[in-house]
């Protein structure tokens, strides 16, 4: 076959400009790696208690409403298939969405990164003379640090979601996708309100109803003030064929923001697209059951462009990339973009349950964050805190089981580990850390049967220098092992299985051959010459 006649590359219409990672100002990277951040979080007893209680409660609720759905696995398949369709056709679907939104009277803006999105929203807000803006809880605007950007421009942002308001009043960061203040208990929330909420009754108790009442009074005043104002939201879904945006929330405060103001600005990640209105039937079943553990979501607001005399009279959609097209570039990692932000993977994750969300350093914590954040930001060097995220999992697989769109998180975690290792391997002088040396050495040994056999047979005798039946705490100067022995004992290697087997074979062969044995009864199974290996074990052993 002639090479000349063949086309080696196919033009898939990929953009001429290589997709860029999320801008560094995004809230997608912490200041230190996961192991260190987790260690601190694990030491916080109150946090551990809050997390254990909250994740167990949500998890149990989810499990019970999922169990009652006979077609749950089929729904997951449908959700997954739709999301794969979207990743496969994203450019066309985005253009279709832009056309639909424009036709419905909205204005579409394209933002490559956090800075561009921040500039667009700030300009729109300032042009309308708004001093205060109300926010609907949104992950995309958290990710790009929009509140900070607006504050910098002199605009005050008020979060309307109760949990998000708690976080904002505390000057804190969200630690969960669905329940941003999951790390706080009601006594702590009472303290936050007393410190930061104007005109609060100083006698307020930590009764949840009383606290919610205080937040309601505080927010109502802001809602009533909205007629000439601006509100900012995200969206759970953006329907390409109708230009409809969908916001799924539990409190109704979001709906206030989506309907009362004059101008509505929605910042939406480009992956939030669903092809057609009918596809919502799948996701509006999957999302509430997976996230809040409800059969049906309480406040689902669908809005399409603008309608005269009804709702906001001006609508702007800011479509945000911020590293998403870079995620899309990796065929094995791209399904991280399928996430519908239900947070079921956080609640079920034994790591998240114990460390909480702040240890991940990103707006997106938990298992989904561990695969999303490093892909969005890219991982430039081994010191990058996001380089540690793919390792922040025991690969137990509970996340994959609960994911409503079947993102194979464990496989992507391993893929990202391999990517990180390969990147280090290819960079000159970087592939010589403790792990690299250990893994190279172990790999060589484990692919050399003869050397391995000798090493295993000597492990037992060698370990006899250590006293006792089990190995206790080992000194920290040793590489890697103290990570194990600091916390648990290790069995003392005695006679290896293969040594035991060889002895048994020898004994058995000797017994078999004793009557009339002629030559070398001691070594009936000596290594075969030339093969370099020795296949012992041909018979069933003694009875």
């Amino acid at each position, binding site marked *: 076959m002639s090479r000349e006649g063949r086309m080696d590359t196919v033009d898939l219409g990929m953009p001429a400009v290589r997709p860029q990672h999320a801008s560094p100002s995004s809230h997608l990277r912490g200041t230190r790696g996961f*192991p260190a951040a*987790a*260690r601190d979080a*694990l030491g916080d007893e109150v946090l551990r208690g809050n997390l254990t209680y909250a994740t167990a409660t949500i998890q149990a609720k989810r499990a019970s409403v999922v169990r009652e759905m006979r077609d749950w696995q089929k729904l997951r398949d449908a959700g997954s298939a739709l999301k794969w369709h979207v990743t496969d056709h994203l450019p066309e679907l985005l253009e279709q969405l832009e056309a639909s939104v424009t036709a419905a009277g909205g204005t579409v803006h394209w933002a490559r990164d956090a800075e561009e999105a921040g500039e667009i929203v700030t300009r729109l807000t300032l042009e309308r003379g708004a001093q205060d803006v109300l926010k609907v809880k949104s992950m995309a605007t958290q990710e790009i640090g929009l509140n900070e950007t607006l504050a910098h421009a002199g605009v005050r942002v008020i979060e309307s979601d109760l949990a998000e308001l708690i976080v904002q009043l505390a000057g804190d960061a969200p630690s969960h996708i669905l329940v941003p203040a999951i790390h706080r208990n009601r006594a702590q929330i009472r303290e936050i309100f007393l410190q930061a909420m104007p005109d609060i009754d100083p006698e307020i108790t930590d009764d949840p109803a009383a606290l919610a009442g205080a937040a309601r009074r505080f927010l109502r005043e802001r809602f009533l003030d909205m007629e000439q104002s601006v509100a900012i939201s995200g969206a759970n879904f953006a329907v390409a064929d109708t230009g409809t945006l969908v916001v799924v929330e539990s409190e109704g405060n979001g709906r206030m923001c989506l309907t009362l103001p004059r101008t509505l600005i929605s910042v939406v990640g480009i992956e939030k697209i669903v092809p057609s209105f009918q596809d919502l039937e799948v996701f509006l079943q999957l999302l509430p059951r997976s996230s809040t553990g409800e059969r049906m979501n309480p406040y689902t607001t669908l809005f399409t462009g603008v309608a005269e005399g009804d709702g906001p009279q001006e609508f702007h959609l800011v479509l945000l990339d911020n590293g998403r097209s870079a995620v899309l570039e990796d065929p094995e990692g791209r399904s991280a973009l399928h996430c519908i932000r239900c947070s079921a993977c956080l609640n079920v994750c*034994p790591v998240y349950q*114990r*460390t909480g969300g702040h240890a991940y350093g990103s707006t997106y914590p938990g298992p989904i964050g561990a695969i999303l954040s490093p892909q969005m930001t890219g991982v430039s060097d081994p010191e990058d805190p996001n380089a540690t995220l*793919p*390792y*922040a*999992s*025991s*690969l*137990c*697989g*509970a996340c*994959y*089981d609960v994911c409503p769109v079947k993102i194979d998180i464990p496989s992507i975690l*391993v893929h*990202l*580990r*391999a*990517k990180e*290792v*390969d990147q280090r*391997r290819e960079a000159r002088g970087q592939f010589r850390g403790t*792990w690299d040396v250990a893994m*190279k050495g*172990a*790999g060589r040994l*484990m*692919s*050399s*049967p003869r050397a*391995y056999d000798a090493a*295993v047979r000597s*492990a037992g005798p060698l370990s006899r220098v250590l006293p006792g*039946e*089990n190995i206790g705490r080992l000194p920290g100067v040793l590489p890697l092992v103290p*990570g*194990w022995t600091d*916390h*648990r*004992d*290790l*069995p*003392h*290697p*005695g*006679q*290896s*299985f*293969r040594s*035991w087997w060889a002895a048994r074979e020898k004994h058995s062969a000797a017994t078999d051959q004793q009557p009339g044995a002629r030559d070398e009864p001691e070594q009936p199974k000596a290594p075969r010459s030339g093969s370099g*290996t*020795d296949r*012992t*074990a*041909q018979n069933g*052993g003694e009875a």
Partner: protein
Amino acid sequence: MRISLMPTCLVDVMTPDVARSTVMLLERLGHEVVFDRRQTCCGQMHTNTGYYKEAAPVVRSFVDTFESQLEEVDAIVMPSGSCAGCVREQHPLVARHEGDAELEERAAAVAAKTYELSELLVDVLKVTDVGAYFPHTVTYHPTCHSMRILKVGPRPLRLLRAVEGIEVVNLPQSDTCCGFGGTFSVKNDATSDAMVTDKAANVVASGAEYVVAGDASCLMNIGGKLHREHAGDSAPRAIHLAQILASTREEPFVPSGTILGRAS
């Protein structure tokens, strides 16, 4: 049947009685066990830590060894859900990463004959009552990879319930990971410790004398924690499914002081 034993590298060195018990059990059931000394490791540690390139020769060595036996043995058994899962799910992955289509095909042929112990017993040897005797209270930890990758389901429990004299009690939060996770236990040792602390506490709360599982790695983690934090004669111990199934009236299992060890 003629069964090739892949005890796994960890069992071979650290908890050899698990492999010895597997041999005792299968021979008692009338099968012939063979062990090929050329075997090393399935490569899971390298693969799961992201060292695909270093895993590849280990996988190749594994495939070379067991492929050469395919004609002569009826099955390959591994007393580990996690390692059997690696053979089935990850060997083809590593081969693909290396661009080695031939290895991928050969690995799939070996994997097709490879079983975790409870799968071998229930599905291949069609036995649930293996004639074992173990007059103790046990609680069962399903282990993540047995449960979620191999999906062994109720097989181990069916085998356990058929054991004479045994009492199986419920383990609270049994399907939560013990925190082992291979190199996770060292790379994220504090988080791993928090997980195994809770697992050990649940084992103690179950009131069982033994916590049983199908993976020596998880058991080494749980047993190591129990030994460190809950030492004492009445503290529960870790035991592998193979050790219980190998135990008989004539030769009952008697634990030694070593984690997962047997008194000789």
